[in-house]
């Protein structure tokens, strides 16, 4: 299963910028992967920085100054993860 999404916001800069496209597939993420996750009924794009036990994923934005991530919503379970970004298409 694969997903194509459009990035909105600046929390993943400089890796991802607004209007970039991300192509994600359903697979098990590792630390360092950029993932799409469902948090509070909203799809967010963040980077996995830690995988805790039992399978709780800490997600942080690359742009820490402008990111709402696991620092506020906590680590998320595997079931919240939608896909791992395997390809990005730059808007510019």
């Amino acid at each position, binding site marked *: 299963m694969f997903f*194509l*999404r*459009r*990035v*909105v*916001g*600046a*929390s*993943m*800069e400089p890796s*991802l910028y*607004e*209007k970039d*496209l*991300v192509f994600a597939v359903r697979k098990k993420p590792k630390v360092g992967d950029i993932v*799409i996750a469902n*948090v*509070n*009924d*909203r*799809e*967010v*794009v*963040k980077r996995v920085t830690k995988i805790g036990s039992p399978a709780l994923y800490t997600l942080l*934005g690359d*742009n820490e100054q*402008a*990111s*709402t991530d696991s620092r*506020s*919503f906590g680590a998320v379970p595997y079931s919240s993860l939608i896909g791992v970004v395997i390809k990005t298409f730059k*808007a510019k």
Partner: protein
Amino acid sequence: MLRNFLKPVYAHCDLPCGIYETDTMTHATATCAKMVEKILSYGEIDSTEKNNNFIRAIQIKEEHAQKVKDQLYILWSDYFKPEHLEKFPDLHTIFWQTVKQASAVKQHVSEEECQKLTVMVEKIAAMFADSKK
């Protein structure tokens, strides 16, 4: 064009957490005032170094004035809700005028315009704090 039809993924910081603040716009306003003070202090631009700093100060002022506008839009559209209008009936007018004032600061090199913006941003910060009581 196709991009607009694709489902968005959010790399946001204002949503969905619901964390809002007025510190960013307050600091950005103070930065604008500081940059205007610097720009006016340069006098005659008689060296490359001075020219470089002069241009940087203008750029920083304009960036921060835009930041004030962006922060105002977030607060206005995302934080304040229709029920707040009962408590602050002139909310829309205040935001509209403050955004326009931030544009004036961006456009001009004026301590007076910065001072006006400072007062208006303080008023919005007070309104925001009051709304949380």
